[in-house]
């Protein structure tokens, strides 16, 4: 396994917005991390990348094993050697992800120079190759441009190039397309998929859109209110969702041929991290809620049919 997250919990002071998350990701694989807003997707990403201290959070418990090393045990300088080099990050909004005062090329070059020890010229050559491989026309001219001179889609490619420049093994992409237009969004998603296959990277793709997951992910982890609801391979997950929340999320996306009025939605809203209820956090919105769901936390358990599930009353069960 390239990345193994076990029982990960994140705390901010007394608040624990993320508890007991576990999932795996292998090379050449795309893991979709889905859930509604506030479910803890970004926190998971930050925890894996070791960036929690930046927002003054900390890992309270659990391990993040990357290529055999438990990152949670590393000191910041050691961790820094991983970041950018072996683990790269792509964030949601390309409009704000680049330093507006630095030329594009320099922002990409620095990764190869810092981590791969390349010379200025060497790094620039790498950068241009990289940009060309991302189908950016006139790569040389673009690398001399400033971020504000590029369109959003183009900028997101630059951010991806920046991620690739350290020749990483793992890319964490946190909603890389939500800020983009639909047509561009599709291109970026497909581009990421392609990169994973070509380069044998692991990709952790964070999204709230089950459609995206269905289109590109191999494996899915569904988060709800800071806990893992279900993880599984993508195809069976969509074919026969076991967690009521997974099913409901899928049901929220209109599909062709759907009868008007059949779009279900999920009643209620995600609770805030400071006000998590006892028991299953989804129980208030769940159609299958029983008494036990109110009081007892369903822990993720491995299932014979594959993946893990945290539900007292899964679908398909009596």
């Amino acid at each position, binding site marked *: 396994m390239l990345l193994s997250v076990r029982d990960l919990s994140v705390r901010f002071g007394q608040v624990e917005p993320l508890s007991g998350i576990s999932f795996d990701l292998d090379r050449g694989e795309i893991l979709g991390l889905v859930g*509604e*807003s506030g479910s803890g997707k970004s926190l998971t990403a930050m925890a894996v990348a070791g960036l929690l201290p930046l927002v003054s959070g900390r890992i309270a418990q659990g391990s993040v094993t990357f290529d055999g090393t438990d990152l949670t045990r590393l000191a910041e300088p050691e961790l820094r050697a991983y970041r950018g080099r072996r683990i790269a990050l792509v964030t949601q909004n390309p409009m704000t992800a680049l330093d507006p005062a630095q030329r594009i090329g320099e922002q990409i070059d620095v990764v190869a120079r810092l981590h791969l020890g390349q010379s200025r010229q060497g790094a620039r050559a790498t950068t241009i190759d990289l940009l060309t491989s991302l189908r950016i026309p006139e790569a040389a001219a673009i690398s001399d441009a400033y971020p504000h001179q590029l*369109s959003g889609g*183009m900028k997101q490619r630059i951010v991806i190039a920046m991620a690739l420049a350290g020749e990483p093994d793992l890319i964490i992409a946190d909603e890389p397309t939500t800020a983009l*237009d*639909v*047509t561009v*969004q*599709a*291109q970026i*998603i*497909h581009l990421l998929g392609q990169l994973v296959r070509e380069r044998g990277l692991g990709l952790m793709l964070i999204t*709230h*859109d*089950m*459609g*995206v*997951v*269905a*289109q*590109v992910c191999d494996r899915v982890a569904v988060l709800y209110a800071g806990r893992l609801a279900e993880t599984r391979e*993508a*195809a069976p997950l*969509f*074919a026969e969702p076991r967690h009521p929340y997974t099913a*409901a*999320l*899928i*049901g*929220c*996306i*209109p*599909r*062709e*041929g*759907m009868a*008007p*009025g059949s*779009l*279900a*939605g*999920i*009643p209620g*809203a*995600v609770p805030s991290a400071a006000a998590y209820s006892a028991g299953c956090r989804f129980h208030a919105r769940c159609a299958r809620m029983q008494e036990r769901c109110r009081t007892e936390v369903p822990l993720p358990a491995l299932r014979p049919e594959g993946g893990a599930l945290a539900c007292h009353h899964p679908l398909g069960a009596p």
Partner: protein
Amino acid sequence: MTDPLISAEALGRRFSTGGGWLRPARSMMAVRGVSFQVDRGEVLGVVGESGCGKSTLARLVLRLIEPTAGRVRFDGQEVTGLGPGDLRRLRRRMAMVFQDPYSSLDPRFTVADALTEPFAVQGETPPAGRINALLDQVGLSEAMAASYPHQLSGGQRQRVGIARALAQAPDFMVLDEPTASLDVSIQAQIIGLLSDLRRDNGLTYLFISHDLGLVRYFCDRVLVMYLGAVVEVMPRADAAPRHPYTRALMDSNFVPDPTRRRTLQALTGEIPSAFDLPKGCAFAARCPRVTDLCRAENPELRELTPGHPVACHHPI
């Protein structure tokens, strides 16, 4: 069928920016020659990418901004020529729901205050029980009347926004991306609510979105816009797209079904600047079917099959 409830004829709106001391004034057509009709009880969808003029069109239809060309009729009455008093009276019959539920409510107003405003504007006081009835209609508890916006979730706020639009029992509602900033689960709730309201109150909607999948689910007909102009009007939600741009939008839609993974015919090129539109078809730069004709001549919107106008030299 009787007259359409609302009709727009060759609507256009030009914006000028800059024109300060240092920058030369630049102008762009945010909406170019858009015509359409919405029948009573119908839902007309408008889709297009960000900046293509959807919101501008919505504002023009409700005359929240003045058109630079064309006119709008509502129930046989010309909206574009009305004086302030008549316009205000007419506003009881048409309402708008906004994209951002966070800024569409005055933070100082309680829910009850917000729902009273449509009456206050008309110089009335709401009839007894009306506020509670409205809350009930959008699925909010009456206890919420005293809450302030910051105490509500995004979905709840949007419900308040819808209730406010419903306050004067309008015939027609413009929904400008009412779910774009909400989670999918909440989006589905809101769409469900809007369907119910339409069914129960016989409302007519102009529904704006950038999500073709959603529009095709919710609307009867779909207007596809590109850079301010209509490129295709799909007569039915499930009609096959004829314009390459509509096709591209459709391909970009992610279906939640891993067994139906699509390969994408990637669009190349960049969207031209609205300030500097090319001579020919605005989509030419990105179109997989482009020919010299497209670059030279702007295609007119014409009906390929009855009720299905497309503006393309080489329709699919």
